[in-house]
């Protein structure tokens, strides 16, 4: 049954894991996402759905446990925050290389290094351009509400399994820590082993007499066939363009466009409403998927606005993709705060006004 609750983003994500029929979650505490494992442990899904929940010895262990589970076709997930996500990168690259579906949540915080525990969006490059080694991409979703922290779980799993590719939810300390009203979707039961074997004929669930053995690997010593493998991945990423999602607010008559994702998009939504009250025609484009990215739509909008402002809680990462999309048609400005500092709507509006 769908239910309305007041939850933190982290808790909504955890509850959604249980409801999405996730088979296993592996995690390691780190602020600001520890509520994920805390919530799961309080709900004891291992007694209800049979979902495995384990607090591991490290993020490295957690992501490799995901690899193991995913290799057998199970729905597996892990979560962490920036430093922990960095540790997982080798494992994420292996998942992509071996074409395994898995869900990774990053509740990002300010960095580099140990940095701060306050929210940031400075992991955009890491999430969208690979992150680990090798030629690969993740499917990346950027929630901007607690509701989306829940809703993106089944969506991410669907895409991950459809393309056999890891999916990442790139959130941050704002969305993870804040509480909002959330309508929880109806639980989906976990798949049986027979279902998994049917849906994932590649899964290493034990060789049956009627099939060849299944091997999960990312190794191919022959450069020509490795190249072929990477080209196949590339085709997959091109097909993944079909999963593009974005939201537009007041763009119809906009003279000035703001592009922002996740928590920043929430803050910029307020900028739009204050600006409109002051008679300034400002619109907002919010990429919901960061990979694939709405290059085409931004290019179209660049034909009708006077300039574009990109805001991020970083020194400017997504702004590079926006500039690629705009192809120099109009000026692209950037306003950012970083290291865990957060801008307010008025601050952004003041900056915008200096560029009129």
């Amino acid at each position, binding site marked *: 049954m769908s239910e*309305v609750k*007041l939850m933190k983003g982290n808790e909504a994500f955890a509850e959604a894991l249980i409801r999405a029929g996730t088979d296993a979650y592996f995690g390691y505490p780190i*602020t*600001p996402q520890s509520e994920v494992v805390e919530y799961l442990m309080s709900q004891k899904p291992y007694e209800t759905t049979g979902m495995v929940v384990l607090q591991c010895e490290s993020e490295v262990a957690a992501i490799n446990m995901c690899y193991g589970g995913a290799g057998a076709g199970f729905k597996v997930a892990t979560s962490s925050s920036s430093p922990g996500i960095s540790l997982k990168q080798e494992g994420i690259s292996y998942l992509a290389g071996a074409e395994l579906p898995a869900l990774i949540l990053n509740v990002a915080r300010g960095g580099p290094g140990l940095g701060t*525990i*306050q929210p940031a969006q400075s992991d955009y490059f890491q999430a969208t351009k690979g992150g680990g080694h090798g030629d690969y991409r993740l499917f990346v979703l950027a929630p901007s509400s607690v509701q989306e922290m829940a809703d993106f779980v089944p969506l991410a799993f669907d895409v991950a399994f459809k393309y056999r590719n890891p999916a990442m939810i790139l959130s941050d*300390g*704002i969305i993870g*820590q*804040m*509480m*909002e*009203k959330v309508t929880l979707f109806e639980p989906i039961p976990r798949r049986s082993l027979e279902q998994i074997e049917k849906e994932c004929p590649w899964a290493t669930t034990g060789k049956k007499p009627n099939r060849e053995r299944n091997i999960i690997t990312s190794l191919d010593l022959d450069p020509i066939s490795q190249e072929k493998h990477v080209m196949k991945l590339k085709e997959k990423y091109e097909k993944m363009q079909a999963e593009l999602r974005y939201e537009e607010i007041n763009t119809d008559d906009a003279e000035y466009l703001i592009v922002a994702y996740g*928590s920043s998009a*929430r*803050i*910029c*939504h*307020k900028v*739009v*409403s204050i600006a409109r009250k002051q008679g300034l025609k400002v619109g907002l484009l919010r990429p919901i998927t960061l990979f694939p990215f709405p290059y085409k739509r931004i290019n179209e909008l660049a034909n009708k606005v006077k300039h574009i402002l990109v805001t991020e809680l970083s020194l400017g990462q997504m702004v590079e993709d926006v500039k690629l999309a705009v192809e120099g048609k109009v000026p692209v400005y950037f306003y950012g705060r970083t290291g865990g500092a*957060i801008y*307010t*709507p*008025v*601050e952004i509006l003041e900056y915008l006004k200096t560029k009129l």
Partner: protein
Amino acid sequence: MTEEIIIAGFGGQGVLMMGKIIAYAGIMQNYEVSWMPSYGPEMRGGTANVTVIVSDERISSPILNEYDTAIILNQPSLDKFEKTVKPGGILIYDPNGILRHPERKDISIYKIPATEEAAKLGLTKIFNMMVLGGFLKIKPILSVESVIKGIEKSLPKRHHKLIPQNKEAILKGMEIIKLV
């Protein structure tokens, strides 16, 4: 209707809980709500604050720089947030431990001696409910019934026997709040 509130005080004063109850009560009345805490080392007895928004529209930014209402429970928070109340807005504060009182002339300032009153009644643990009562008196955007339901949702079952006491505290808070 959109009400943007900041609640600030020391960790352990029940600041986050008060915000949570307002948010839950908002849900009971079908409003959109958001609750954004300060988090981190504040846990260790430092200052804590929470931004709560209750609205009949989709809520945009959960982070604000001005508020309709500021509920202030210690001096550092008063110093920080007095200037963030919108002109014409409301500041509610508990004078306990306050040396420099609020000075603005373009907002309505209310005083609620909740710490003192709660100590008298032996209700120190739920002094925050008294403050909440004071707020509801000044800004009756939520009914006491919704707030009680909010408390039910926010408190673990084993503490539900304390609900009548909470209600008493809320009503007391409504009595003792005074315009400065």
